[in-house]
């Protein structure tokens, strides 16, 4: 074989390697996106189960519509926001690649990256809306939820991601923020946005007594909720995969620092386990135990690349002990959050971002200062404010024009019977006339929890 032949073969091999790299990258994010859809299947089951039977389908339809509206609106504006605002509010050069009419935003044989990254981020966006959806079940209008979900998913969180989950984001370049698992931009922003919404939305009818004590308005299907939560945990492995950047030279974090999937595997699983055990010890409640899996992964999220796995377990265990208590405080403040999203995601995110600063300061960043408690703390405040104020203001506006909450009569009757053309449990339906008929001796009483009216 002469030199010419050899160099031709080398060129051929190089071209093959480049093509394989491109395809591997595309395939990786494609499957991460597919796995993330399990998060939505999980939230769907979780929230329908956590609703009383009279509201089961209305809760499901909200969740499904959040997904359906998030995809096009994130295409229209969301991806551009991510590329445009890493510096704050000034528009970055090159961000036009994210505009919906750019040549990168559709079939383009010279761009293998835009579509799969956009898809993964669209699913992150839909996750933020799903985090909110469980908290507002049984009393928010579908239209109001869709509007708020679009605002949260296609505008607010992605601005936070541009600031703090981007190699050029100002929270990283100025303060050294390190939050690779998105405890801040996804979980904190969604949780605090939801808190702002809940203040304006108010509690469900019957949730609190005049003396301030709370009543239990249990959902109709806890087993379905538990399965849903486990599906969310599974989907989070797609979510965390989407947090890693595939390059021809190996994996990096979203901040361009080196990492590998093994680090994520150790710490994500140890985090899930720590959170489950912590919440179980704190409550003995299977619902909280499965929410604790989320608490665990969020508690360890910021430092998934750097923690010693046993320590990630401990951080998540502590998160699991604390978060149910924070939910109790919110209940005392008459915040009606049926699924605990504010405490799990909002305050779990606070613990995750701060833990990185408390226990893992001093790691170098590619751009900006090293990780520090001060940087993590100030970034945490930014995420909390960026979530809370848009949520509070947008829901206040909807409340002012009477678009936020369903009428009392609809809430009492149940949202399914009012808005949905099909029934969740048609064979369990008991017509109102049956309730008026005196029971015949020897026949079992009709009507069950499935048709109970609060």
């Amino acid at each position, binding site marked *: 074989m002469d030199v010419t032949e050899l160099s031709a073969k080398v060129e051929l091999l190089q071209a093959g390697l480049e093509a394989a790299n491109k395809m591997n990258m595309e395939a990786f994010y494609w499957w991460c996106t597919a796995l993330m859809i399990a998060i939505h299947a999980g939230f769907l089951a979780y929230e329908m189960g956590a609703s009383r039977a009279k509201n089961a389908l209305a809760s499901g339809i909200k969740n499904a*519509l959040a997904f359906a*509206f998030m995809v*096009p*609106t994130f295409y*229209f504006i969301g991806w551009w926001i991510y590329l445009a605002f890493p510096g704050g509010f000034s528009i970055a050069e090159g961000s036009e690649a994210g505009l*919906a*009419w750019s*040549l*990168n935003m*559709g*079939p*383009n*044989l*010279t*761009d293998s990256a835009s579509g799969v990254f956009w898809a993964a981020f669209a699913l992150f966006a839909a996750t933020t809306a799903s985090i909110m959806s469980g908290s507002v079940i049984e009393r928010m*209008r*579908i*239209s109001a939820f*869709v*509007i708020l979900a679009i605002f949260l998913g296609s505008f607010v969180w992605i601005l936070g991601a541009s600031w703090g989950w981007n190699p050029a984001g100002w929270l990283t370049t100025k303060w050294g923020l390190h939050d690779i698992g998105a405890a801040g931009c996804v979980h904190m922003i969604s949780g605090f946005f939801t808190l702002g919404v809940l203040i304006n939305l108010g509690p469900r009818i019957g949730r609190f007594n005049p003396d301030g004590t709370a009543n239990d308005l249990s959902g109709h299907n806890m087993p379905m909720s538990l399965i849903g939560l486990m599906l969310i945990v599974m989907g989070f492995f797609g979510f965390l995969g989407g947090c890693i950047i595939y390059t021809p030279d190996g994996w990096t974090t979203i901040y361009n620092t080196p990492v590998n999937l093994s680090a994520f595997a150790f710490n994500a699983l140890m985090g899930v386990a720590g959170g489950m055990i912590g919440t179980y010890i704190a409550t003995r409640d299977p619902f909280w135990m499965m929410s604790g899996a989320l608490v665990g992964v969020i508690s360890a999220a910021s430092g998934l690349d750097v923690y010693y796995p046993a320590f990630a377990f401990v951080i998540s265990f502590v998160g699991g002990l604390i978060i149910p208590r924070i939910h109790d405080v919110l209940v005392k403040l008459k915040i009606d959050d049926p699924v605990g999203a504010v405490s799990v995601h909002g305050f779990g995110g606070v613990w995750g971002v701060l833990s990185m600063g408390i226990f893992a300061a001093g790691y170098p960043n590619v751009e900006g200062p090293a990780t520090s408690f001060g940087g993590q703390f100030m970034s945490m405040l930014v995420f909390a404010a960026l979530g809370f104020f848009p949520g509070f203001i947008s829901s206040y506006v909807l409340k002012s024009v009477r*678009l936020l909450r*369903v*009428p009392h*009569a*609809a809430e009492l*009757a149940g949202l399914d019977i*009012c*808005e949905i053309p099909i029934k969740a449990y048609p064979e369990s339906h008991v017509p109102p006339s049956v309730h008026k008929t005196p029971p015949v001796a020897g026949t079992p009483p009709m009507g069950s929890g499935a048709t109970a009216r609060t």
Partner: protein
Amino acid sequence: MHSSPITKWEGAEAFFTFADKPGVVMFLFLLAVAVSVFAIVSIIKHENQSYRKLK
């Protein structure tokens, strides 16, 4: 309907069917935005009708 913006694969880069001119791209984009807005308005109308029936 002959709507392919390309006639051969060699050298093909971006190809958006029905959207091979900037004006058409913008029109389709605005149409998709309008559909989304219409859908939200439709949900509001459906809710209002449902609540009226309940009274």
